[in-house]
């Protein structure tokens, strides 16, 4: 959490620096099935975030010693491209991406029906191509859609969103400036069907009440993301129907 001092006016007339209200998400755009080689994929834009998720599997698990005889091995790799941030990030995993990869994988492990594919691996790769705060939430939300696109059986999608504290106000979906200068960040990931929490991290300072408020806003944000995930998956289908038939009339 930044919490640094700034002359930026983060709040003005009840509106945030980018004109949003407390409960407004940044614009989100989700496209399903964008990579030819991956079994499932999803490209997601969220504010200035651009993330690409690819799923390979279930496939034979290598290295062999990582094979689980009773279920699939789920692997999740969150990676930031060096050019994704202002200050070039050295390529390769760092401690932060290792931690994010861990908690994201853990968020998915009980949601995916791993027992259906013993001895295999299901590999989820998420690349952050451009970062604009909230990358782990964007990544996990995209990964969920990519897993569905790959035909991996799951209990539900995971929808992820964060809320935080900026200038003493609790708001949803912090943008970059708010993340840098804000005083708390609470990313969560839920199973929208049951409302159960599969991912939760917090840093900053929140009173008991503020925690409840932030949680509630993040939860509502997750449900909004879920609607977009659902729409993207259903729309892909509709589009397929329309264009293919259109094209067909031209051939023959």
């Amino acid at each position, binding site marked *: *959490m930044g*919490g*640094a001092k700034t002359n930026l006016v983060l709040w003005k007339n009840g509106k945030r620096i980018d004109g949003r209200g407390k409960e407004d998400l940044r614009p989100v755009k989700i496209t399903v099935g964008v990579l030819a080689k991956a079994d499932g994929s999803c490209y997601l834009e969220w504010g200035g975030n651009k993330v690409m998720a690819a799923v390979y599997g279930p496939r034979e698990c290598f290295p062999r010693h990582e094979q689980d005889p009773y279920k699939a091995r789920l692997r999740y790799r969150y990676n930031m491209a060096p050019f994704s941030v202002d200050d070039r990030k050295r390529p390769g995993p760092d*401690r*932060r991406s*290792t*931690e994010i*990869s*861990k*908690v994201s994988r*853990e*968020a998915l*492990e*009980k949601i995916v029906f791993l027992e259906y594919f013993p001895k295999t691996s299901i590999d989820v790769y998420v690349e952050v191509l451009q970062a604009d705060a909230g990358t782990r939430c964007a990544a996990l939300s995209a990964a969920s859609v990519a897993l569905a696109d790959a035909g991996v059986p799951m209990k539900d999608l995971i929808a992820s969103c964060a809320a935080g504290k900026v200038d003493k106000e609790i708001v949803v979906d912090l943008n970059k400036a708010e993340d840098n200068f804000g005083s708390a960040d*609470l990313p969560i990931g839920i*199973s929208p069907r*049951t*409302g*159960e*929490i*599969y*991912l*939760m*991290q*917090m*840093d*900053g*300072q*929140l*009173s*008991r009440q503020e*925690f*409840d408020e932030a*949680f509630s806003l993040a*939860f509502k944000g997750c449900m909004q993301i879920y609607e977009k995930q659902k729409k993207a998956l259903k729309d892909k289908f509709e589009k397929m129907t329309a264009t293919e038939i259109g094209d067909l009339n031209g051939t023959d």
Partner: protein
Amino acid sequence: MEQTDLIWQVKKDALRRQITEGKRIDGRKFDEYRKIELIPNFVPNAEGSCLVKLGKTQVLAGVKMSVMEPYPDQQDSGVISTNAELGPLASPEFYAGPPDEDSIETARVVDRGLRESKMIDLEKLCITPKEKVWSVMIDLHILDHDGNLIDAASLAATKALLNAYIPKYEDEKVVLGTKDKKLPVKDKPVSSTFAKIAGRNVLDPILEETKIMDSRMTFVTMENGYLCAGQKGGTGPYTKKEMDEMFDVALVEGKKMRKLL
């Protein structure tokens, strides 16, 4: 090897059943920490240190200070960093080598608790703005793993910082082994970790409980009752209600633990 696994499988089910009956393997209540022993200044060569025994878990935290150039976006601020080593001597399951994801997670959660509580006023660690600031490096050495490394490490780190001294800085050099003034600290963040087993949440899980848990939740709380770090680990889900209940326990038990500091 296989026999041990079989025995463990039998044990696992028995432990889970006991939990549903309200019993913990070591007889503790669900909201009770194990016996805690703090030995501050265990390593006189370090600027600050503390050995913590949480039940049989042992973690040694050492604080070393050095002088460095500040980061470009925080030019008049000292720097704090935390590292954890889950070394092979602590457990038959750890191997020597670069930190794995568990070590990294432990270090980062402890670090967030220290950093976000603003326990150390980093601006007071500025020697010359834009040029020289103090760097506080906290190293967590796990000596014996019997569960709940996060809370033990957090306690050790907090106590080590509370007892730490800034060495003298003369002629552009740190004079090792000296004590100039106490590290300026305020607040005493305390970490409370819970394991979820068979639908129940137990505080300060012992190693066996860690092995059978479905998930793990950590709340780091400050003196004023604010939350400064939180982390869900493991694969099982939580309801908001469970989180609220654990937060309550964290505040009460955390307060008691803070008295030890």
